[in-house]
């Protein structure tokens, strides 16, 4: 299985990663290698084997539905780049 350079660029865009044009070729090669490895694993007969959702063979512990958090807005907003009227400000997004 081999990824095209266009696919690499699309994946980078979806993940919002900036990559240099000169590196695209080598990313395509490395990622294709990983996909090949997965393709090889897919050849194994896994009939009767339950799909693994997590490497730890345990189930999720649940917490009681109780409010335990205090208002720490001031502390959180002290490390934010820009805030106003209690809101975090970000570059304009319009749908």
């Amino acid at each position, binding site marked *: 299985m081999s990824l095209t350079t266009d696919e690499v660029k699309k994946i980078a865009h979806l993940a919002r990663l900036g990559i240099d044009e000169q590196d695209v070729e080598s990313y395509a090669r490395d990622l294709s290698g990983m996909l090949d490895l997965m393709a090889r694993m897919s050849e194994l007969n896994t009939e009767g084997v339950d799909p693994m959702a997590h490497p730890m063979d345990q189930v999720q512990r649940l917490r009681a*539905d109780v409010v335990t958090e205090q208002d720490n807005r001031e502390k959180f907003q002290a490390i934010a780049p820009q805030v*106003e009227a209690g809101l975090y400000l970000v570059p*304009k997004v319009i749908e």
Partner: protein
Amino acid sequence: MEWETVIGLEIHTQLATKSKIFSGASTAYGAAPNTQACAVDLGLPGVLPVLNEEAVHKAVIFGMAIEAEISHYSVFARKNYFYPDLPKGYQISQMELPIVGPGHLDIEVDGVSKRIGITRAHLEEDAGKSLHEDFHGLTGVDLNRAGTPLLEIVSEPHMRSAKEAVAYMRKLHELVRYLDICDGNMQEGSFRCDANVSVRPKGQKEFGTRAEIKNINSFKFVEKAINHEIERQIELIETGGKVVQETRLYDSVKDETRSMRSKEEANDYRYFPDPDLLPVFISEDYKQQVKAQLPELPQAKKYRFNEQYALDDENANILTSSRQLADYFETVLKESGCEAKLCANWITGELSAALNKARLEIMESPVSHERLAGLLARISDNTISGKIAKQVFEEMWRSPATADEIIAERGLKQITDTGAIEAIIDKIIADNPGQVEQYRSGKDKVFGFFVGQVMKEMQGKANPGEVNKMLQAKLKQ
């Protein structure tokens, strides 16, 4: 050409928990911005989500109520996309193994019952809110809502008209409130709907290309938005165009839908199991426990009201539309000892009309069940007529007095002294010889005139049955 519409709905219900799905921050609505957004909700590095047991409980309750398969093993996944109101860059949701599997809900449209399949319902976290008003060209983000537990309920594409879609949505809304898993407040966004709409030539098996209409947050808008979208698609195809798969936003002011984004770009969510969360295990014992605690469901209650109280469909439907209203009815019935029909008619009639006018819910009714029961008991034992009872009810709406107090104070008690009624009847017969002549010559309609006159003279305080009987006897003399 004749067209057939195909509709499936995705409904997001905010589960009514005290704390968030993966953190201990409060979910209360209306707090000052970002005062209920903790490190987990903000997606700060190094935090670990821990699942809220009550969110799981409420999801299982829902699954049981729609007779769905509850997955004994379900898995959380990351749905990856970038938007400022989702600080982690992914939403924790469920993909492959949702907590609630296939189930169903029965709806009724124009007296015809139809079963709508529910594909699945999965747990996920809500996003925050972006405020696009002008903050010097920037967008403001409030993350109080981020992490509120959602149950996304996905239907099969089983609906064939906007009317059916609305009926399904109403039924689901009624159900989640019955189950007490969601407050159903649509203005506050507790119950939100996206609709997948497509059309196809009647008789064709394959589905047409669908458009998704986002965030239509009232029953009225759902019907309008879907009908508008159906028209748009048919017109497009009939003029040689093609429907493209895309997300559209409904504009209620202009009554139109417009394109928001095309699906190809937006839909590449690259789901994968969230390594921060272990699989959720739900035991058979737990399921049985939840099942045993389910309240009586709307449909079952309606049938019971039909059977047990001999109520017609209309009354039974209205009375079972909320658990509170049904409880109110049954309490009044028990406390008044009256006939079920009398109680039902008063609650769906006078009381509902007054509540609607004042925009109040049954829980907020100024006339308590005790006071209404007291009033109905006086109709039942002939102390007052139905007509006088309406006056008493109006007074009760305004004051905290009981029916008995109002009846006594205003002297509204029915006159049962037959001598007094007789005297008035005699007077009216004497005053209206012309009408008496007409009646005796066979014009039965004139009888109503006499009843009216007697009641007027007695200010409505005579028992109409008694008046009828005595009048008939007198006029025949």
